[in-house]
Each structure stands twice: as C-alpha cells, then as structure tokens.
C-alpha cells in the first residue's frame, strides 16, 4: 500500500505518466466538446416551450456539473494532503481551484442570460442560482487564502483546511437555501421537472458533459505539471527533460 501511495505521490512519476495521457485528454475532450456544440446548436430540435433559447443548456449544465465536481476533487486532494502530506495532492488542488471558480462563474453567467428569455429577468433568487453564487464565494475565498500566505506550505495547508470545512458546509448551505427558497416563493423554476428529453436532445448534452470532464482533467493535469516545474526548477530530471526537449526539437 505505502509504496504505491508514494509512487503516485512522486512528481517525477506523475510528470512522465501524465505526459503520455495528456495529448489524448486534450484531443478527445476537444473533439467531444466541438461535436456536442455543433450538434446542440445546429441539429438538436428546438424545445417546444423555450424554442432555441434552450440551447444554452448545452453549456450551462456541463459548467454547473463541473463546478461541483471540481470542488469535490479539490476537497479530496486537500484531505490527502493534510493526512499523508503528499505535496502532489496540494498541487492538484491548487491547479483545480481557478478552473472550478471559472466554471462556477460560467454557470452563473449562462444561467443569468438564459433567465432573460425564460423567466423575463436576469436574476431570480432561485435555490440553485443562490447556492451556486455561494459556491463561487467559497472558491474565491480558498484562492485568496492560498495567495495571502507568505510561505507556500502555510498557504497550502490553510487552503486545504478551508476546502474541507467548505465541503462539509456545502450540503448544509444547499439544503438551507432550498428551504429558504420554498419559504419565500411558491413558484420554483426547476429544470428537473421538465418532461423527459428525446435522445436527439440529451445525446449532445452527454457528449458535452463527458468532453468538459476530459478538458477539466487535461487543464488540471497540465497546470499540475507546470506547478511541478515551478517548484523544482533545479531537479536533475527536470534538467534532463529540458535537454531532451531541445534535442527533440
């Protein structure tokens, strides 16, 4: 068990392994997202109620799913970092946070735009939108806290503790917001209560979600690789890598 964990936690091993996988992640992810976008925008039939504005769903839903998955990844990496002191886990958590924040913002932005033709307003204090907004603040807080510390290890541990506190709080925030919302207004605008979608509508969505996940993995891996080099610019294997790259070019 222990050798495996330490092998997985070795930056060098990660760098070499991920180098093999990274082109596939970028490639397949891009293909899926481009296919899903073209399919969703041009070929999927318009919704019988919302017309063509429903096509925002094809970017809104993947962004919203990614925003939450990214937090889950960040929190699990934080736990691994705090318990086993594996620095690689912290690098992954640090690489995932800005992407999660960007996805949360994207989901909020596309949701607000979608709100205009659907609800007639940019913003409603809907349970999902509100909890998404709070999620964005959590991401911003974690990123700001990491940057505020002078020492890298201090910032990493602080961000990890806050991520774990945040992940315990997220379900509570979510349920409290839902309760608050039902207390306030009877009419809830829910996407889940719509009739089942035909395959020509949900297949492009599936492509988009899988594509977003692959691109998320690619971005996180690429940013983690950059962080490895940034932290160890004088390691022998990094030197060898640069020389190999130069000879290869």
């Amino acid at each position, binding site marked *: 068990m222990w050798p495996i964990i330490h092998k997985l936690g070795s930056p060098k091993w990660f760098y070499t392994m991920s180098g093999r996988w990274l082109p596939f992640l970028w490639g397949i992810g891009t293909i899926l997202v481009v296919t899903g976008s073209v399919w969703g925008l041009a070929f999927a039939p318009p919704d019988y109620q919302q017309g063509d504005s429903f096509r925002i769903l094809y970017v809104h839903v993947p962004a919203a799913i990614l925003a939450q998955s990214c937090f889950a990844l960040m929190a699990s990496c934080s736990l691994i970092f*705090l318990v086993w002191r594996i620095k690689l886990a912290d690098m992954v958590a640090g690489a995932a946070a800005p992407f999660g924040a960007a996805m949360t913002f994207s989901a909020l932005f596309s949701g607000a735009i979608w709100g205009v033709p659907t609800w007639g307003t940019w913003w409603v204090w809907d349970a999902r939108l509100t909890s998404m907004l*709070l999620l964005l*603040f*959590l991401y*911003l*807080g974690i990123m*700001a*806290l990491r940057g*505020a*510390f*002078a*020492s890298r*290890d*201090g*910032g990493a*541990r*602080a961000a990890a*503790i*806050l991520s*774990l*506190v*945040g992940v*315990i*709080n997220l379900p*509570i*925030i979510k*349920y*409290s*917001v839902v*309760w*608050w919302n039902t*207390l306030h207004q009877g009419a809830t605008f829910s996407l889940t209560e719509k009739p089942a979608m035909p395959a020509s509508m949900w297949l492009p969505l599936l492509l988009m979600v899988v594509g977003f996940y692959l691109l998320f993995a690619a971005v996180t891996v690429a940013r983690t690789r950059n962080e490895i080099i940034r932290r160890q610019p004088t390691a022998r294997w990094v030197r060898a890598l640069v020389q190999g790259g130069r000879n290869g070019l």
Partner: protein
Amino acid sequence: MTAERAGPRRAVEPLPGLWQGFAATLGRDCRLRFRRRSELANPLIFFALIVTLFPLGLAPDSTLLSGIAPGLLWVAALLSVLLSLDGLFRDDFDDGTLEQLLLAPQPASVLVLAKIVAHWLTTGLPLALISPLLAVMLSLPGHSMGVLMLTLLLGSATLSLVGAIGAALTVGLRRGGVLLSLLILPLYTPVLIFGAGTVRLAVDGAVIAPWLALMGAMLALSLLAAPWAAAAALKLSLDG
C-alpha cells in the same frame, strides 16, 4: 536521575487536567475581555447602529419595518459577530500566549474551545440579550421576542465556532480582516437562513420546534468539528 527527580515532584504537583485547563483558559479570557470594557461594548454599539441605519435608509413605516425586522436583526447580529472575530486570537498571537497555549499538555482543541466559549459569552450572549430592545424599535410583534432571543443564543454560538476557524486561518496574516469576511460569510449563510427564517415563522405563528432543532443540530456539528479545525489552523498560522 531525571526520573527520580521528576517522580516525587509530579506526585506533589500533578499536571492540570483537561477540565482545569479548559476552566483556566476560559477564566483568563473572560477576565481579559472584561478588563477592556470599551472593546466589550463595541459589537453591541455596532449592532445598534446598523439597526438604526435601516429605518433611516428605508422609511419610518412600522409595517414595512416589522416585516423585515427578523432578517434585519439577524444580519446586524451576524455582522457584529464578524466584526469581533478578528480579536479572537489576535492579541494572544501578538504577545506569544497562543504559542504557549498550543504547547500546553492539554489538547489544543479543548483550549481553543475555551477561548471560543469566552468569545461567545462576551459577544453572542450580550447581543441576544439586547436584541429585544432593538426589536421593539423595529416593531417586531411581541410574541416572537422569545424566539428571537433563543435563535440568537443558539445561532451566535454557531457563528462564534465557525468564525473561529476563519480567525485562526487569518491570524498570522497582516491584513486578514477583509479576507476573514470573505472566508466566513459563505459559511454563515445557513445559520442566517435558519435563524431569520425561524423568527419569521414565529411572527406568523407557525410551528418552530423543528427549525430550532435544526439550529441545535448545526450547533452540535460545529461544536464537534470547529475547535479541532481551528486548532489545526492555529498550528499552521504559528508555523507559517
């Protein structure tokens, strides 16, 4: 040789136990806070000021004010607690007491809990006690005063506990105050929602026992997790 020397002395003067450490820290913190009376009053004055600002900003209409009173009082109390959080560990961090506290033989989380309890006794408890006064000014119906106090008592304890994590994370930073509010306010939202919501239900005369139970559950959860997380955060603040 050392064992021989340590043995008899330990028999004469045993190490203080868990409860003694807790009580000593609690007593010390309360005494320190009561010696600085002006600082003690600051959150209360802030609370009263925010509540005064709202009628000035809105309108002196009593039906409007009584409608928004539960939320307004709760937001004002929450901000007052937030304002006082930076002082929770700051002085002890600056003069080195915190380091001694974490070196003590008792678990750091228990001693941190004592400091949090002292903070609640001097912030949350007085806030809850003076809230009916301000609620009368906002013409909150009389029958919901008790519920307001009860939710503030329960809720402010949760606020102190959760806020201690943020205060511990930012105590080592030079300009931690603004960052502290960014970190803590999203975590405060459930307490605000249930606190203000319960008072609103009480105004309408609805059943509030389940919501009070939920607030108690939040308090229990934070009582379980917050001292431990705050102690870990304090350790890293002292290292960093």
